[in-house]
C-alpha cells in the first residue's frame, strides 16, 4: 500500500487500504479491495471506473452506509484525522449530512415520494443542532435559492414528483450543502440528467465548492466530466485503484492500459467518422478475478509477468500506476 503524494494542505479525507467486502451466498465479493486516496480542502477528486468497479461502494464506505451483506473489513478512513471506520454509529450520524454530505446518482429516487420537500429539508436542518421550525424553514428557503430553484418559498410545499429530475437533483444538492460540509461525496449526480442540465449542475457545484472550500469526491464513469471538474483523478478497476494523478497528466499521458482504453472509448470530435475503440471483454466477475493483474484478460499489453500482482508505482511526479509495463501505454 502506498499513500498518494501529500497535497499542499493536509487532506480532509485520507482513505488508507480500504477493504469493503460483500459476503454473498456464492462467496465473498471484494468490491473494494485495498483502496487508498486523499482529498484536500477545496480539491475535487474524480473517482472513475466502469459499473461494478467499486467506486460507488467506496463512496458509501466513507459515509459508512454500506448495507449488509456488505461490510468494511479493513483499512482506515481518516476524516480530519479521525478514523470513521472505528467510529460509533451515533458519532457517525453526527457527521453525516453535517460535515460529510452525499449526493446520489438518481434524483428520481433520492427524495421520499410521500413527504413534502419542506419536510425533507427541515428535518435535515434540524438533524444537526437545535433550530426552531421557523428558522429551519428559512434555512431551507435559502438553500433552495442557492441552488437556483425559482420561487423557493412556494416550491417548498410541493412534493418531489412535482419537480423535474434536474430540479430534484438541485434539491438533493441543497440538502447536501445545508450544513456547509467539509466534504461532499457525489455519486454520479449528473448521469441521469440531460447534458444541458448536467452542465448547469456541474457549474453550480463547482462554484459552491469553491466558495466554501469544500472538498469533493466526485464518483463518475464519465471522463469528460472529470476533465472539466476535477483537480485529480483516481481510476478504479475491479475494486482497486489502477492509476491516479493530476487530471491533465493522467488524461493526456495515461500509463495504465485501462485508463488509456477508457479515454479512447470517449467519442471525440477529432476522430469523427473513425470507429470508436472499445475495451475488449467485460468487467470481470469479482467472485472469480484473474490471478495477478485483474485487467490482464482484457489488456493488449499483457505478458506472463502480469500473473503476479502489480503494485502502484510512481511513473511521473504525482502519477501512480498499477502496471508492470506503463511505458507500453501511449496516449491516444
Amino acid at each position, binding site marked *: 500500500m502506498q499513500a498518494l503524494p501529500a497535497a499542499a494542505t493536509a487532506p480532509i479525507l485520507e482513505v488508507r487500504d480500504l477493504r469493503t467486502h460483500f459476503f454473498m451466498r456464492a462467496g465473498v465479493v471484494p468490491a473494494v479491495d485495498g483502496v487508498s486516496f486523499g482529498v484536500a480542502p477545496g480539491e475535487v477528486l474524480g473517482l472513475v471506473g466502469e459499473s461494478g468497479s467499486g467506486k460507488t461502494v467506496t463512496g458509501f464506505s466513507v*459515509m459508512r*452506509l454500506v*448495507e449488509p451483506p456488505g461490510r468494511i473489513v479493513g483499512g482506515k478512513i481518516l476524516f480530519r484525522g479521525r478514523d470513521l471506520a472505528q467510529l460509533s454509529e451515533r458519532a457517525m*450520524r*453526527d*457527521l*453525516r*449530512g*453535517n460535515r460529510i*454530505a*452525499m449526493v*446520489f446518482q*438518481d434524483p428520481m*429516487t*433520492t*427524495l*421520499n*415520494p*410521500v*413527504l*413534502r420537500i419542506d*419536510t425533507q429539508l427541515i*428535518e*435535515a436542518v434540524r*438533524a*444537526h443542532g437545535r433550530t426552531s421550525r421557523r428558522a429551519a424553514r428559512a434555512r431551507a428557503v435559502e438553500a433552495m435559492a442557492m441552488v437556483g430553484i425559482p420561487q423557493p418559498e412556494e416550491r417548498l410545499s410541493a*412534493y418531489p*414528483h*412535482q419537480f423535474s429530475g434536474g430540479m430534484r437533483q438541485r434539491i*438533493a444538492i441543497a*440538502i447536501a450543502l445545508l450544513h456547509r460540509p467539509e466534504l461532499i461525496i457525489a455519486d454520479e449526480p449528473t448521469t441521469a440528467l440531460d447534458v444541458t442540465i448536467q452542465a448547469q449542475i456541474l457549474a453550480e457545484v463547482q462554484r459552491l465548492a469553491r466558495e466554501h472550500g469544500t472538498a469533493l469526491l466526485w464518483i463518475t464513469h464519465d471522463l469528460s466530466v472529470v476533465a472539466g471538474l476535477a483537480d485529480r483523478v483516481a481510476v478504479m478497476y475491479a475494486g482497486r485503484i489502477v492509476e491516479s494523478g493530476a487530471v491533465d497528466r493522467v488524461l493526456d499521458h495515461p500509463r495504465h492500459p485501462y485508463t488509456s482504453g477508457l479515454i479512447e472509448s470517449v467519442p471525440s470530435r477529432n476522430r469523427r467518422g473513425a470507429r470508436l475503440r472499445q475495451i475488449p471483454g467485460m468487467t470481470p466477475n469479482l467472485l472469480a478475478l484473474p490471478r495477478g493483474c485483474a485487467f490482464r484478460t482484457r489488456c493488449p499489453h499483457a505478458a506472463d509477468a502480469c500473473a503476479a500482482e502489480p503494485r502502484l508505482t510512481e511513473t511521473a511526479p504525482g502519477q501512480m500506476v498499477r502496471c508492470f509495463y506503463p511505458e507500453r501505454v501511449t496516449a491516444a
Partner: protein
Amino acid sequence: MLWLLHRVIQAGFVVLAMTVLVFVAVNVVGNPADILISPQADQAERARVIAAFGLDQPLWRQYLHFLVQAAHGNLGRSFVFNQPALQLILQRMPATMELAVSAVLLSVLIGIPLGLLAGLWPDALLSRAVMAGSILGFSLPTFWVGLMLIMVFAVQLGWLPSTGRGRTALLFGVPWSFLTLDGLRHLLLPALNLALFNISLVLRLTRAGVREVLPMDYIRFARAKGLSPARIVGVHVLKAILMPIVTVVGLEFGSTVAFAVVTESVFAWPGMGKLIIDSIGVLDRPVIAAYLVIIVLLFVTINLVVDLLYTALDPRVRSDEAG
C-alpha cells in the same frame, strides 16, 4: 364531486340487487308464516296473520311494497318483535360497532409494531416467532380461537369474563362498554378474538412494506442526512408503507363487522350479528333485509373514506386526478 354521485348511484344498485336476493332467498327457504304462526291457530287466525304481514300477496307485490316503504325510510316491521326492523338493528348496532372498532384498533396497535419489528430485524428470533404466529392467526378458525380464549382466560385462569357486555355507561344516549372498567374487561376477549385475523394481516403487510422500502435510495439518503433511526422508521418508512395498510384495514373493517357474527355468538355479545343469526333462523325477512341494507351502506361509506384517505396519504394520487 361527480365521482361521489357515481358512488351513491352504484350503492343504490347494490342495495336493490341485494334486497331482491333477500326476498327470493327467504321465499325459497320457506314460508315465514309456518314458523311464526302457532300450529294450534285456526284457519281464520292464520289467514288474518298472513294478511297482516302481507304474505298473501304475490312476491313481486311484496317487494314493490317494500321498496315504496323503504323510499319513505321504513324498512318494515319485524315479524317476530313487532318493532320497526331498522330500530331493532340500530339498537344493537353500537355493541357491534364497539366490538369491531376495538378489534380494528387492536389489529393496528399490535400489527404495525410487530410488523415493523419483523421487517427491521427479519433474522431475529422474535421476528421469526411473530411471523410463525401470524400464520396461526390466519388459519385458525375464529370460533375455535374464541372458545380457546374462553377456556384459558375465563375458565382456567379466571382473569376475564367470557360473556356479555358487562357494565355499560351512557354516551349520547347509547350504552357503551368501553367507558367502564368492567365493560373493558368484557370487551377485551371478544375484541382480541375478532382482531386476531387482522393482526396477522396488518403485521404481514407492514413487514412486507418495510422490507420493500428499506433498500430504497430515499431511505439511504435519509440516513446520509444524519437523521435518527427513529425518525427514519417513524416518518420515512411508515408514511411510505401506510397506503396498503390503510386500504386493507379500511376494507377489513367491513368484514370485521360481518365476522362479528361469529364472535358475538361465541361470547354472547348482544350486537346485530347475534340478532341477524336469530332472525335468519325464524325467517324474519324485514330484519334480514334491513341488516343487509345497513351493511351495504357501511361498506360503501368505508370505501369512500379509504379513497379520501388515499389522497391525504399519497400526493401522487392527487395529481393523477387532476391530470
